[in-house]
C-alpha cells in the first residue's frame, strides 16, 4: 500500500440529472473535507449542472468546508451554461488546472 494522500481531487461527471448518486459523491467530498483532508472537486460533463445557481446545496456546503469547487469550461460551454449565472462557489477552469493538481505530489483522484 502506498503513501496516504495529502489531498483529494474528486471528479464528478454525472450530475444531479443522472440520479441521486451524484449528490452522494459530493457528500463523500464533504466527508473528506470534514475529516481534515484538502479537497478539490472538479465538475465535468453533466456534472457541471451542479454548478447552476443554488440547485445543488452540497456545493455551498463544500465551499463552507473550505473545499475548492471547479467546473470545466468546455463542458459548461457545451451545455450553454455560461449564458446563466453559475454558483458563486464555483470557478470555471480548463483541463490544464486539473492536470496540474492531478500530477502534484500526494494527490489522489477519484472519478465518479
Amino acid at each position, binding site marked *: 500500500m502506498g503513501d496516504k494522500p495529502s489531498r483529494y481531487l474528486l471528479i464528478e461527471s454525472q450530475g444531479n440529472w443522472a440520479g441521486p448518486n451524484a449528490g452522494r459523491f459530493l457528500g463523500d467530498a464533504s466527508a473528506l473535507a470534514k475529516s481534515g483532508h484538502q479537497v478539490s472537486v472538479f465538475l465535468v460533463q453533466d456534472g457541471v449542472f451542479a454548478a447552476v445557481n443554488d440547485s445543488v446545496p452540497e456545493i455551498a456546503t463544500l465551499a463552507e468546508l473550505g473545499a475548492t469547487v471547479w467546473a470545466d469550461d468546455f463542458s459548461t460551454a457545451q451545455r450553454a451554461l455560461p449564458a446563466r449565472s453559475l454558483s458563486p462557489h464555483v470557478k470555471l477552469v480548463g483541463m490544464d488546472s486539473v492536470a496540474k493538481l*492531478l500530477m502534484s505530489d500526494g494527490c489522489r483522484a477519484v472519478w465518479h
Partner: protein
Amino acid sequence: MTDTTIQPAGTSELPATRKPTKIVQRRWGLLLVVTAAPHSNDVITSAMRLAQAVLDEGKTVRMWACGYANMLTQKAHGDTKLINTRDPEGFYPSSAHIVREMLAANPGKFAWIACTACSAERGATDHIAEVRFRSPLRFVSTIEAADQTVFIGGA
C-alpha cells in the same frame, strides 16, 4: 516501445554468466483507465482532454481501455467516420484515426493499451497496430508503473 528493460545487477562477486538480472520497469506519469463506453456520454472526450493536458505538463500518459472503450481503436473504423448524409464531402476523422494521430504526435510519451479480456468479450480484437494488447493479469503491475492512476468506471 517496451516498458521493461533487463539490466545486469552489477554484482562483481559472481561470474558474468551467473549474474542475476533485475527487471526495471519503465515509469509513466499518468495511467488513465477508461472502462466507460463511447457514445454513452462525453467520457472519452474528457479522458482524451485530460490526457492531452497532462502531456502538455511534460508528463507521460498511458491509456488503458477496458470494456467498450476498446471499440475506439478497431481497424474497421478506417480513417474516417461513415458519410454524413448532410455533408457528404466533409472530413470526419474516426476515433481510431484520432488515437493514431495522438500516438504519432507524442512518440514515447503517450501509449494506448487494449485490455485483451475486454476486447475478446466484445468481439473487438482487431485493433490498429499502434495499440498494445495487454492481459488484465498485468493490470496492477501497470498501475504500479505509474505515478498517478485515474480509474474511470462505467463498463
